[in-house]
């Protein structure tokens, strides 16, 4: 999908599962998004510092820095950067915690991929 005024937007997918990253890439690329991937929190922070990222899809369960830690770091490093926080069957407490740490949206796995693409569209449009 083309967004008015820009040829493409960049989505950073942070998930330790390669198949999950590939799934989102396969959905988002045809929609006109550039997709960057990070398998852990550390790589994600490096990419956020070096690339023009418009939105982050961040999974909670990761080795090393987990999603919530990365969320706090992003809040400090790039306040205002939209983050869609994703976790498998998180529950209301995680949802609340992620919002407290600055997540724009919260989604629970397994979600309909169609839905996350719509959410990304919405978030990007809101931000610009």
């Amino acid at each position, binding site marked *: 999908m083309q967004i008015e005024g820009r040829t493409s937007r960049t989505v950073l997918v942070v998930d330790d599962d390669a198949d999950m990253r590939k*799934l989102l890439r396969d959905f988002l690329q045809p929609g006109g998004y550039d997709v960057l991937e990070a398998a852990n929190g550390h790589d994600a922070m490096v990419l956020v510092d070096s690339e023009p990222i418009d939105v982050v899809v961040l999974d909670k369960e990761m080795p090393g820095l987990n999603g919530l830690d990365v969320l706090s770091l992003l809040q400090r490093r790039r306040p205002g950067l939209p983050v869609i926080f994703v976790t498998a069957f998180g529950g209301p407490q995680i949802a609340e915690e992620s919002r407290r740490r600055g997540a724009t949206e919260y989604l629970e796995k397994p979600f309909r991929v169609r839905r996350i693409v719509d959410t990304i569209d919405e978030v990007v449009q809101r931000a610009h």
Partner: protein
Amino acid sequence: MGLRLRLILVLMIPPILVFGVYGVLRVRNEHADLLLTDRQSVVLISKAVQIAVERALRDPQTPDIEQLLAEIVDDQQMIDGLRIFDLDLRATVVSKSRVGTDLVATDLLRHVIATGHADGVARGDGAERAFYYLMPLRAANGTIVGAIEIAHLLAAVDARLRSATWDIVLRLSLLVASITLLTGVVLQRQVLRPLFALTEGIRNLGRGDPAQPLPVERADELGRVAEAFNTMADQLHHARRELVLETERAVDLEQQLRHSATLAVAGRLASGLAHEVGTPLNIISGRAELLLQSIAPDDPRRDELQVIVGQIDRISAMLRSLLDTVRPVKPDIQPVVLRRVVDPLLVLLAHTARRHGVALEVSIPDDLPPVRADYNQLQQVLINVLMNAFEAARPAGRVVVSAAREARAGEHGVRIAVRDSGPGIPASFHARIFEPFFSTKPPGEGTGLGLPISRDILKGLGGDIRVDSAPGTGTTFILWLPEHA
């Protein structure tokens, strides 16, 4: 031997002895009296006979001596036979006689003739037994010319003696029997019946039946025993009811705790599983969605793909509802006074500690500040840690719970230490005991989730838990919770 019999014996032996001695003495006296009277009568009549015979012997116109003797024996009931002996100890005249005449008391006869003094002797057996009285016979000038023997049958006096003896024995027996009966009745009414009631009461009490109060209608020792028994039964009943209530409370609490522990374990298992399967499910359904997008709207394979997506949705919904059921409720954070958590637990814990043979000591100061916690969660953590401590310390060990203020990184808080006298934990296990499913207990005894759950809870409350232990020195779990602002 029953108490009744023993008491009666003890009570009756002195009177029986007294009555017995009295009876024997009485019989003897009676005998002596009877014999004395009998002898005196014989002696008196014998004097008369002596005089009559002496006169007859001296009279020149000698009447028939034999005739005289026969008349005397016939007239005098007390005289049953008469014999006259000469100086050679020969029987010269023998009356008809009711006693045997073949025996002669030669010695006595010689003695009477020699000395001139009358004397008697009792001889013979049974019906033949008789008293023989010998008297000298003198001539007119006073010289002894022979002797006369008066025989007196003793059968009659013996019969009287026997009847007198029986009479005494019968009277005394009746007296003893009535006293015994009276004693028995008094014992039964005054001692045995209250004792029986007391025994029955104690038996009921032992069986656990509510004891019927004993009647306290007497001011004596037994009355006081009944009173003391009633008081004791009352106290026992109260104590038993308290114990039952306490046990019920402990069981209730234990069930509650077990339920919440089970929920926590189930929650942990379910959420662990859900986290693991969430991503793969997402990938499957996502791929199916991707295929759905890429095929023509009228492609017959659409239905197949819809089924895949639909079934993934079904699994997700199922897992979500399962998680909603077992997910711990949001902690209800409030100021919690540690003693208010521990004190109600002590009922259950003291019971469990006793069962493990472990001495439990709790020393929590009253002036600790309240901590920021969820009452139920903190209770669950304490139970987990204490149950581990009991298991470690058994049998015959000690578990000490203490608490004190302690600041961490500038934040005020309370430190709770649970120390056990168990075998200790090697340093290499210190980190692993907080990992899920790590357990040193035999399979089926521990879930291996108590400590991980406790740590999760404490972390969620902004506190923590750590272990301080080495083999041989016991183990201390140190919990810390922030003070409620």
